[in-house]
């Protein structure tokens, strides 16, 4: 517990405000805690609870803000104005939407599995909020510094697959089943390149902890790992079902996919989880590939500002992609994952591993990989950019030809009313 307090500045600040005394003078500089001696456990509890409260409400408020931002920016992309009536610049629009959803009737279909149906929004929101726990928002500010944070993020994020499948299965709606089938097929496929793309980052940083990854980024990893960043961006947009991978709730095809039957605040929660999911993904992208809270100046003082700026940038990228791309078909999406992203992820992993092997050994002490220096990171950035350009061009050409060949018709139309198989 002591070392945890020592590292986590936010936690320590709140704890010391309540329970600072002679006993913990080592890390509490001011010794005037407002709680009497012997009540340190309450200090721990309050500190943890406060941070969780801030995080959960911050995520939900961020989701509301993101809804507003998305609608405004999409409006600009569409050459229209977007919501601008309620509050300054329409900022209160999400609140109005939420009120509307709250007072709507909460319908559950008769043939639905009631318990599972009701659990879905909870599971979705839970998986999202859990994934926010490991992200360092500023210098020494995080809920938990797990030593397997990257793995944890991927694992917790994939819980949403189960939520989506629960929704599709319990709704008793054929469109929902369609959405669920599509989502399970797609998400499991995209999980593979997603994880592979993160291994490169972990190799360079030498740690799975997000805090260590941020500290290792003397050069933003988006330059050192351009392929990894691209694959992660694509994979995570599939995970979040944003265009061009939004087949599981493709509005023009299957109404709303897995959440067709949801209404009222359950629908609102699913939407909130989806929107906050974009923010979580942007946060992870910013942390792993753009240096997290570290900035060119005032890194430790203005860490939160730098972090928010980077997060906003990636959130904007997600909105931009959504506003400009049509949707792919399911077989094309699967082909894209297995034939394009996965080989690229392997190439990225191999090249990074070789580079780390050499650069790591150069500075190695007796039996330990050495720290990769800033100059070496620049060299790696140059090499990896070259590899990225070559690999994307080559693989793009291969898959493009593959995709443009005539798709196979599985059934042949013969005469009115009858359908025969080709083979």
């Amino acid at each position, binding site marked *: 517990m002591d070392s945890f307090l020592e590292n986590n500045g936010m936690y320590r600040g709140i704890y010391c405000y309540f329970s600072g005394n002679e006993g913990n003078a080592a890390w509490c500089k001011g010794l005037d805690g407002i709680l009497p001696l012997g009540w340190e456990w309450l200090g721990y509890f309050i500190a943890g609870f406060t941070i969780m409260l801030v995080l959960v409400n911050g995520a939900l408020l961020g989701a509301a803000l993101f809804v507003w931002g998305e609608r405004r920016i*999409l409006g600009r*992309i*569409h*050459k*229209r104005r977007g919501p601008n009536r309620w509050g300054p610049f329409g900022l209160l629009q999400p609140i109005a939407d939420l009120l509307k959803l709250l007072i709507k009737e909460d319908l559950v279909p008769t043939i639905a599995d009631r318990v599972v149906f009701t659990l879905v929004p909870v599971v979705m929101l839970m998986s999202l909020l859990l994934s926010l726990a490991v992200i360092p928002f500023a210098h020494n500010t995080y809920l938990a510094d797990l030593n397997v944070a990257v793995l944890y993020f991927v694992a917790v994020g994939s819980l949403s697959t189960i939520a989506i499948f629960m929704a599709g299965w319990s709704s008793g709606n*054929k*469109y929902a*089943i*369609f959405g669920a*089938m*599509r989502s399970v097929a797609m998400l499991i496929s995209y999980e593979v390149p997603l994880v592979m793309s993160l291994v490169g980052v972990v190799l360079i940083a030498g740690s799975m902890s997000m805090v260590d990854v941020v500290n290792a980024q003397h050069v933003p990893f988006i330059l050192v790992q351009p392929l990894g960043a691209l694959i992660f961006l694509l994979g995570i947009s599939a995970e979040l079902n944003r*265009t*061009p991978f*939004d*087949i599981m709730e*493709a*509005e*023009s*095809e*299957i*109404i709303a996919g897995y959440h067709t039957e949801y209404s009222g605040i359950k629908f609102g929660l699913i939407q909130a989880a989806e929107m906050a999911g974009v923010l979580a993904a942007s946060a992870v992208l910013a942390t792993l590939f753009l240096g997290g809270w570290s900035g060119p100046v005032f890194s430790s003082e203005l860490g939160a500002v730098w972090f928010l700026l980077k997060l906003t940038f990636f959130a904007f990228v997600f909105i931009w992609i*959504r*506003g*400009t*791309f*049509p*949707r*792919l*078909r*399911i*077989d*094309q999406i699967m082909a894209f994952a297995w034939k394009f992203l996965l080989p690229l992820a392997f190439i990225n992993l191999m090249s990074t591993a070789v580079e780390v092997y050499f650069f790591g050994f150069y500075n190695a002490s007796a039996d330990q990989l050495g720290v990769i220096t800033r100059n070496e990171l620049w060299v790696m950035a140059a090499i990896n950019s070259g590899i990225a350009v070559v690999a994307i061009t080559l693989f793009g050409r291969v898959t*493009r030809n593959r*995709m*443009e*060949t*005539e*798709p196979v*018709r*599985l*059934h*042949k*139309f013969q005469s*009115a009313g009858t*359908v025969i198989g080709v083979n």
Partner: protein
Amino acid sequence: MAFKTEPMTINIGPQHPSTHGVFRLRVTFDGEVIVDVDPIFGYLHRGSEKLAEERNYVQVLTLTDRLDYTASMTNNQAYCLAVEKLMGVSVPERGKYLRVMAAELQRIASHLIAIGFFLQDLGALATPLMYCFRLRESILDLFEMLCGARITVSYMRPGGVFAEPPEDFWPALRRFMEESPGLIEELENLIMENEIVVVRTKGTGILGIESAIANSVSGPVLRGSGFAWDWRKADPYDIYDQIDFDVPVGNNGDNYDRFQVRMEEIKQSFKIVSQCIRQIPDGPIRTELPLVLRPPAWQESYGRVESPKGELGFYLVSDGSVAPYRCKVRSPSLLNLHVLKELLVGWKLADMIVTLGSIDINMGEVDR
């Protein structure tokens, strides 16, 4: 390893975001693949043909506006041609030019809707649709100048057009003609080469030329299949014989070709409108006819135009009274739907929506 899968039947529509109105498809899926399609329509049946028998010849015009409400001008034109044949009257030259101009503007507007919703069905979140609607709005503004209405125009009358355009119409039209081709080009640059659009539409929803002809498909769907057939060239009505334009034709008959044909037809329509502006003569706009038309008894006539959706025809039979004895509408949307089964069976759900969008149906016209 072979899985035993059960087919699943789903009702797509009548309430569905991308069935373009109240169209219903009962589709049987094997996984994502369509094994059977059963189109069901009639949800928007308003009995227009029967209603026409209760109204006099000029009043029927307002019913034609409501058939294909995205292309009211060409509906008016087809009906007026039929009535003029029945009455044996001719239209003054200026009236013909105004008709063609309005019809071609309407063709642009209708094709813009077709392209916009086609891309919407592809999953592009309303962005191309909004770009299309921006241009369509300015066309509707021009219509408002012409006749005071934007959608249900009733601009053309048997014998000519309703009124001389106001003075500020011509500068507005010239301004439109200067600005719009650039906007179309912008749209084209944004979407025609888009990798996802190409991958999704090329090679899907292929309609062979023989079956297109056998099912009497018409319009961009027929031309997309590679058959150069356009009533404006084949049987020039109004003044199309005095105007120089091309008929774009596709090669493969897939969704991309139909999409491309529409895009190209928009450009040809701009060409036609600019020629009309140059060539339009002075003179009367309408042959003076009595307010209540009374064609000779037991005559029949068929007036047809190349509407944005295909061959639109009005078959009229007179019985000597003020109202037609029979008014039959040959609507291209309905006949183009006949190839639906051939187009859809064997493809995936996502292709189905795109193919339906590329046929460009309008339920007001299908059900009448």
